[in-house]
Each structure stands twice: as structure tokens, then as C-alpha cells.
């Protein structure tokens, strides 16, 4: 790479060191990751003990980002086994889960079963069976119409999740942008999309920064009161995800490391932890 690219990388590394320092080296400790940490931590822990949530993409183009968020949400529960159901239409739109990428994001491929379904009804059936059988997490990407996914269908899934004690996550991809109008019995519903990049458009491609960690802009559309801890709210918020600890972090944290003399002034704020 050229000079511009390598300085960019150096910049990125420095920022990472700063982030580690700001957390007092907590990431380096060998203690098991605590799922309760960070925003959404309490909600996620409550859901993982037998709950059903929906993740609705903000816009049709955000389907892949919403699926990424659902995967991040499921990742602690996925240690007890993840059943990932992909309907054919969803596979055509946004592809299939990729083993190497999942491994890089912290999922052991031995814990994953990939199920492909043809129609929405099959997806709901497979999801219900998987939840009843006690899979740790079941993630279903479906092209089902909001009309077909009604109160009865979602209630069945909810009961199956309660019985099996796992986390059910449904992505009704076709309902993108209609999160508020969906009627279902789910415990919680998120509306999620990609987090827009803060940098202004550049003329010179080599001056562009490197992509940061996975980040989403999302909001809770609905949640049962018992699931909500004080920190989770219904407003839009921007979250980052760290695959090593499976913890979400606010993209705009309270604790920002003090800028030091040798760091560039213009730090893209979303990158700090």
C-alpha cells in the first residue's frame, strides 16, 4: 500500500491502544465475558433465558446489517448451539452465513446448524421445532409477509422458546421499515440498520479511513416491561459490538480517553470504545 494507507493503519492501531487504556486493560483479562455488561446487556440476558425477539431492518437495503445485529445479539446464547434458518428468498437477497466470517466473529462452526427453508410457513415450523428442542439460539431470516406472521404464529414461537429456554430471533426481512406496524406476541422488537459513516466523502480514495468495528443504529420498538433495565430505552442509539467479549458498547461513550499530543486531532468518534 501507499504511504497514505500505512499511516491510516498506524492511526487505527493507536486508537485501539487508547481504547484499551481507557478501559484499564479489562479486555486483556482472562475472566469469562459477562453478558450483563454494556447496553442491552440485561435485556439480552433476560431474552436468552427463553424469549422471542424480532429484528426488523430499517430499510430494505439494511437487511444484511440487521442480520449482523441479530447474530451479535444471539452470540452469547449461541454457545449452547445456534440453529440458523435461512429462507431461500433471503439467501438470494443477502446470501448465506459464511463459516470463515462467523469464526472470525467468535462463533465455533461446530455449534452451528444451518437450515434452509423454502417458504415462510416452513421457516416458522423449523424455528418452533428448534426452539422446542432446546437450542441455545435460533435465528430465522424469513421473507414471510407481515400478514402471515400474526399473533397466533408468534405466540406459538414464544411458547416454544419458553419451553426450550432458548433465544428465538426472527428477521421478517420483508417488513423492512414497518417495525412499528407489526403486530406480534414477541417479547421485544428491534429496528436496526447500518450506522452511517461519519467521514465526509473523499475525492482521493487512498485518503479514506479503514472500516471500523461492526456498528448499528437501532432502536427498541417494543419490549415487555419486565425485560427492561434502566439503561435500555426506546430511542434511537448507536452501538458497536466487540466479538471477543460479545458485549455491545455505545458508539458515543461517556468515557472518552483524553486526546494526547501524538494522536491525530480528528478522531472519528464512533471508533473509540
Amino acid at each position, binding site marked *: 500500500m501507499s504511504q497514505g494507507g500505512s499511516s491510516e493503519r498506524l492511526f487505527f492501531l493507536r486508537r485501539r491502544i487508547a481504547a484499551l487504556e481507557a478501559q484499564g486493560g479489562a479486555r486483556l483479562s482472562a475472566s469469562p465475558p459477562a453478558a450483563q455488561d454494556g447496553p442491552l446487556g440485561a435485556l439480552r440476558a433476560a431474552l436468552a433465558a427463553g424469549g422471542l425477539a424480532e429484528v426488523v431492518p430499517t430499510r430494505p*437495503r*439494511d437487511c*444484511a*446489517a440487521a*442480520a*449482523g445485529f441479530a447474530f451479535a445479539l444471539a452470540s452469547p446464547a449461541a454457545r*449452547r*448451539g445456534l*440453529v440458523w434458518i435461512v429462507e431461500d428468498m433471503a*439467501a*438470494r437477497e*443477502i*446470501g*448465506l*452465513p*459464511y*463459516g*470463515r*466470517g*462467523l*469464526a*472470525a*466473529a467468535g462463533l465455533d*462452526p*461446530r*455449534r*452451528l*446448524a*444451518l*437450515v*434452509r*427453508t*423454502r417458504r415462510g410457513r*416452513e421457516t416458522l*415450523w*423449523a424455528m418452533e*421445532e*428448534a426452539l422446542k*428442542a*432446546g*437450542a*441455545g439460539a435460533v435465528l430465522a431470516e424469513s421473507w414471510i409477509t407481515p400478514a402471515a406472521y400474526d399473533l397466533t404464529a408468534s405466540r406459538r414461537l414464544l411458547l416454544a422458546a419458553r419451553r426450550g429456554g432458548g433465544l428465538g430471533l426472527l428477521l421478517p426481512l420483508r417488513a423492512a421499515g414497518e417495525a412499528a406496524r407489526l403486530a406480534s406476541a414477541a417479547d421485544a422488537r428491534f429496528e436496526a*440498520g*447500518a*450506522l*452511517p*459513516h461519519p*467521514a465526509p*466523502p473523499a475525492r*482521493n*480514495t*487512498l485518503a*479514506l*479511513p*479503514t*472500516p*471500523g468495528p*461492526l*456498528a448499528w*443504529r437501532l432502536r427498541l420498538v417494543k419490549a415487555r416491561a419486565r425485560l427492561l433495565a434502566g439503561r435500555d430505552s426506546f430511542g434511537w442509539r448507536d452501538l458497536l459490538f466487540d466479538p471477543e467479549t460479545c458485549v455491545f458498547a455505545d458508539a458515543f461513550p461517556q468515557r472518552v480517553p483524553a486526546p494526547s499530543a501524538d494522536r491525530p486531532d480528528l478522531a472519528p468518534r464512533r471508533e473509540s470504545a
Partner: protein
Amino acid sequence: MFLPRLPTDRILRRGARAPDAPFAATLKIKGAERLAGVNAAAEARGLVPGMAAADARAMCPALTLAEADPHAEQALLEAIADWHRRFTPLAAVDPPDGVMLDVTGAAHLFGGEAALLDEIARRLAAQGFEARAALAPGPALARALARFSTLRHVAPEATPEHIEKIAARLPIAALGLPAPAQAAMQRAGLRTIGDLLARPRAPLAARFGAAALARLDALACRIRDPIVPRFEAPEFLAERRFPHGLTRAEDIEATLRGLARELCALLGRHGVGARRLAAAFYRVDGAVKHLEAGTSRPLRDPATMTALLRERLAALEEEGLDTGYGFDVMQLSAQEVQRDGPAAGDGLFAQEEGDLADLIDRLGARLGLRRVLRLHAQEAHLPEFAVAAMPAAYGEAPAPSAAPPPALSRPLRLLEHPEPIDAIALMPDGPPLRFRWRRALYETAAFEGPERIAPPWWKGAGLTRDYFHIEDQEGRRFWLFREGLYAETLQPRWWVHGLF
């Protein structure tokens, strides 16, 4: 089992025509309409297969004709062979108009060999087929008896001399040789099998070939020629028969449950578990329905077995499991068994191994085995080959893969096929500034790359790929590649391969 009137019976049993009027099925042979099959009434008026249709009409003005369909006849013959599996698991098709059964050790279940022959002929007649069944110690002799003799039954313990005496009375055609060889024998004055048996073998072999002698030996039951069954005989089988057909879904399921219990007891006695189950439903009117279900581990639990078959039935229900007049024979068999060793501890889900293995079987039974997959890491550099999705029912647990190099970014999702995009790059090796995918325009805001992946040169030519991890203005992430360096091609193409 010989079905002399298959072409006409196939059409007549649909019931559109009066069965006692002369009727023939025709086939175009070398541009001329010829009779392929005639019914009994037509035969009584002197019509024979092979006759030209115009001649037949002249001989019998009342004759009605219909076109024969060799493919449909073949399919029908296979269905008939399947139907015969209610008597013995070893049934073979003997085209164009016969079915072979190996009833060794099965005949006594139906009250002896003569009773079995009667029952087969009676049941086929009830379905509208004229059938001639014969039973003999060798398949070639049985075949010949059914076609060329009125003798129906040769006991298996018959002496070779007795068998030769029976065979000697058969005509030369019983050998089933091609027409020229048969004509040559006729010219030599050989009329019956007895003429052949009486002559020394060496001159016969020199004149008519070794194949003719082999057939002769098979006919005289001097060599054993086994039949090639349509389905392999299952390792273990449980079966129920009913005097009347079962139609209610509850009854069918209860029967399946009972069969599963029997089969599991059988499997348990041998210390094995089923890896592949097959259920066969024999309908009263002759249709046979087969179901198969695979399991991901040796299975010996009746409840799980029933649940698995229920899923297969439920999957059928959408296209309709046609009970029709009801099923009168139901079989459940273990097609493939495996000794169940200690459960493999390194499975998909550490704790509830059994439950989730059952889940995989159940999903596979309903959705199809190829739709329940496990991801196996492969030693390959091209991203689409680095991970193989294999059916969970067959494969072992994926081997723990070596951790991928952390510096390489890999997307969470890979498109089923890379999709072409229109991209504008400012520099030959640089990332695209903007690109158009599925008619939408994306502006690059951040990128990482290129990561250069060379094609496997030992497998032939291919273009080098430069992969970029791109984030657009809206924060969406893509995994793009440029196929071909500028040194390799003048017009490199851009593709999107994955999404983060």
C-alpha cells in the same frame, strides 16, 4: 410372472372401454402402425401382436385401437414389481412384460407355493391384469414356464433329471435368444429344448455361441443366475397386514408406532441402530408409496422413529398422501444399520446431544436432508471453497478448524454467487470510489484492502482476485473483488461477493 396383455390391460383397466370387445394397442414401428398388444376378445378373432393395424381392421371391423406408450408400460411394470414386494423383498423387473420374484423362504408365509401363485394371479386379476405366474427352482425356467407352458409349478426339491424332462418339452423360443439366432436353430431342425439337450455341447457352442449355452444351462437350472432386485433387501423389516384397507390417519400412525416398536426390538436384539429407515404403504388397488428418512446417529427409539416418520408424512400431506381405498400392508424397514458405539462427545451441541441430533433428523425428514447443513472448513484459498456446507445427517461433526488469521477480514455472509457490479476505481490497484449493485449506487466511505487471492494454478487458468472490504456512506459493508489484475486482462470486472 408374465403379463401377456400389458399394453391393452394398461388402457382397459381405466375402464373407458368394454372389456369383452376386441381391442388392440398399436405402436408405430418403422413408419407402419402395428399391433403391440391385443386383448382376449381380439385374440379369439385371430389377431396377434406384430400384425399391421390395417390388416387387423380388415380381419375384424369391430376392433378399436389405441396408441401404446412404452414408457408408461415400463413405469406400470415397475409399479407392479413394487406391489409384489408385499410377498417378498426381492422383486425385479423383467422387461418388457414380466416380473421376477425370489420367494425362497417366503412362500410358506402365504400357505405354500401353489397358494402363493394363486393369490398373486387372483390379486392381479382383481386389478385388471391378465397374469400367468409360474414357480421354478431357477428364474430362467420360471420365466419360460410362464410364457410357453401350462405347467405352473416345479417344486424346488425337484431332481435335475425331472427338471430336464420339463425343460425338454419347451420350444426353442423359451431360451429368449435374439431373433436371428432363434431362426438359425429352427433352420437346423432344432424345435425344442429337448433337441438341444440331447446334442453334444461342443458343436452347439461352436455354432450358436457361448451365450446360447449359458441360457440353456440357466433354463435347466444347472447354473444359478440370481435376479437383480429393484430394491435391496432391507436388513431388518417389520410388517403388518390387514384384511381391509386402513384409511384414517390415526390408524396409520398407530400402525407405524407398532411397527416402530417391533423394529426397535429387533434392532435391540442385534445391538444395532437404524441409519436409514424406509416405510412402504401398499394400497388396496395396487399403488405403493415409499417413504425414506435418514438419521444422523444409530436410532433405536420407537418414539423418535415414529416422530421422524410423522414428519415425512406431514411433508407428504402437502402434496397429498393418497390413502384412496386404504392401505392393507404396511412395512417399516431399516435399510442401513450401524452398531451404536459410545456416543461421539464432540458433537454439535455439547449438552443436549441427543435432543438436537433428533432435531436435525426431524428437520431433515420434513425439509429434505440437503437443507439441514453443517459448515466444514476446507483447505482452500478461494473464499467460496473455503467452507463446505454438508448435510448434517451424513457428515461427522466438523473438525475444529485452525483459527483464521486475525488480520484477514471475512464477511458474515457470502452471496450464493458473486454478483457483477459497475465500479469506478481511480487507480489500477485501488478500491472503487463508487459502485452500482442491483441498480443502487453506493459511495465508498472507508475501505480496507486489497487482499490478493490467486487462483489455484495447478487446476488451470484463472484470474487473480483483489478483495476489498468497503464501507459505504450509509455504513453498509461489502466484500468486493476485482477479477483480474491489469497485467492479466485489459477489462477487469468487479463483483460483490459478501456482506458484513
